[in-house]
């Protein structure tokens, strides 16, 4: 791994006595795209805010872009683009005015040129005079991304940037992110979409404030030691509840007309499906999906947590 764009350890944060981020350590190499995943309320937004100086960690620290995240917060803000989960640009300014504000507040040169280019690139050119508050949800997200990248940051922190964005726009968005990363930009992006997680170089999975899995998608799947069987055949979806109750079965998830059955103990798993291994049902061992792994991780984190 090359030099780290983000390197923080032992981050802790409590709100009203409740610890929502626990000893989180994240290292992201320069030019890498890291997907930040985890269930709702697991502390993703809180962690991102600590990285860009919006929240002060109770303890812990480290560097972003080689700068101390607490002492040099001001300098980090200059070189970082942060896109908030909730739309947080000025709804009573037009699209172009919002971008111009971003350009000025970052003291950019050739401002109108840059704003025009950004509008063109994001397909917002015809909507430049529209009030941002009246944009549809997906367009708001695109505008927020344009505002966060206008000053050519070296680090991009994106908090669910594609929530509510249509598939084509999402693909365009990811192509753009990869293009930026190719030029050395580092990206930490939170998301709930599995396909997006697979597009990232690395994944960091957080649950209940604890970082519990790290690595590439394949590594995370391998680490989980999860085994999965795939069952197909008429009426198999109706067996889901029945099989779920068996020992050794952690998860039963319907995938269209097929059923994925997962667990960490291969023998117990095989025993659980044995009564159903007869025609017309067909069973085959399968590779667990990222989603299977995440649900498994989440269930385990909850066991440890309680």
């Amino acid at each position, binding site marked *: 791994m090359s030099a780290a764009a983000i390197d923080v350890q032992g981050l802790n944060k409590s709100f009203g006595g409740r610890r929502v981020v626990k000893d989180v350590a994240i290292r992201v190499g320069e030019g890498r795209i890291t997907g930040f995943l985890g269930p709702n309320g697991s502390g993703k937004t809180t962690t991102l805010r600590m990285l860009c100086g919006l929240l002060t960690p109770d303890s812990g620290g480290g560097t972003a872009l080689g700068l101390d995240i607490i002492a040099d917060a*001001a300098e980090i803000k200059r070189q*970082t683009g942060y896109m*908030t989960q*909730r739309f947080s*640009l000025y709804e009573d300014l037009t699209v172009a005015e919002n971008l111009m504000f971003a350009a000025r*507040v*970052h003291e950019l040169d050739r401002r109108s040129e840059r704003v025009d280019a950004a509008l063109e690139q994001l397909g917002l050119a015809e909507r430049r005079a529209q009030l941002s508050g009246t944009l549809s949800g997906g367009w708001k997200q695109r505008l927020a991304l344009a505002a966060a990248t206008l000053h050519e940051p070296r680090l991009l922190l994106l908090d669910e940037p594609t929530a509510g964005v249509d598939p084509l726009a999402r693909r365009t968005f990811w192509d753009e992110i990869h293009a930026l990363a190719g030029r050395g930009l580092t990206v930490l992006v939170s998301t709930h979409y599995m396909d997006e997680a697979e597009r990232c170089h690395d994944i960091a999975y957080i649950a209940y404030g604890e970082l519990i899995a790290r690595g590439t998608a394949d590594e995370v799947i391998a680490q989980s030691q999860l085994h999965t069987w795939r069952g197909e055949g008429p009426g198999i979806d109706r067996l889901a509840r029945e099989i779920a109750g068996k020992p050794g079965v952690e998860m039963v998830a319907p995938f269209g007309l097929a059923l994925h059955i997962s667990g960490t103990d291969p023998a117990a798993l095989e025993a659980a499906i044995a009564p159903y291994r007869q025609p017309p049902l067909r069973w085959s061992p399968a590779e667990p999906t990222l989603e299977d792994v995440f649900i498994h991780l989440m269930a385990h984190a909850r066991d440890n947590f309680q």
Partner: protein
Amino acid sequence: MSAPRRRSSFSWLRIWAVLVKEFTQLRRDKLTYAMLLAVPLVQLLLFGYAINNDPKNLPTAVLVQENSAMSRSVLSAIARTGYFRIEHQARTPAELDRLVRDGEVQFAITIPGDFGRRVVRGDGAQVLIEADAADPSATGSALAALAQLPQEALKRELTGALARSPGSAPPFELVVHRRFNPENITAYNIVPGLLGVILSLTLVMMTALGVTREHERGTMESLLATPAQPIEVMIGKLAPYVAVGAVQAMVILGLGRLLFGVPMAGGWAGLALGLLLFIIGSLALGFLISTVARTQLQAMQMSFFYMLPSILLSGFMFPFRGMPEWAQAIGTVIPVTHFLRVVRGALLKGQTLAEMAPSILALAVFVCTVTALALARYRTTLD
């Protein structure tokens, strides 16, 4: 099994639902709750104790050019009315004049050197009372209380050979000189006061909403993620309103001149400086409020709370000198009080910059203190 829901066109349950929600929201909003109680309480206290429509014990300076039993009797008779509190013994007419012009005293009494001789000779003896009538309500009842004074004051001295026959003219004459507003026109006092009140009302409130609005709409998160510094945000947010304040001031003063014929005696330099400081101070106060309030509603309530003493204790509605000491002390830390003195000083008295210095200085101190507080309170993080 019956349906779990009943359908009705009017429902007490739905009213209850809304009512419970409103109460719960009100209960969560501690500051609003506190204001709902504090405003009437403060209003009651201010109206009940601080405000005095019949102000007594007004500060008075005397210039006694003849130290005699008679002059002492006249002064003690004046003091006995309860309206005058003799605080200064001036030595020269110039000193006496300065005390009135600077607003240190409400009244200046001169007993001339030949007073006793003229009384004895029945030769048109006079006592001169100069009143700072910029605010007519401060002097009205005090001057009215003096009407009977010449008849009564010297009864003890004028006995025996000097005794006056009943029904004859009083032994001396009280010459009342209303300065700065000889015709007792209330508009002359109200217009400068309104200038202060209207300016602070709009400016404090407008800016009080400024930071709070960013928090409420969530835009603060983006703003804080930019490199903008607190002082930059503050100046950027307040500057437009300085212009708004200047325009408001010109409109109010222009209309005051046009419609009410308010005099403009001069003192432009002091007025301009005082106005600028007052506008900046009000804006900074609004900014400070918006760093404390969490919602725009709270910001509105806090601005309103600030307006109460500004209107009641600044000398705008009720004479400053007529209030009890504690109320004057509160009034002294309110910028409107000092701004009012600057505006009256300029428009009605034509004061020079040097004469306004104490008030201008007070405004400057206010601006610095509040700005420092606001910047210290402005959070650069979301914690």
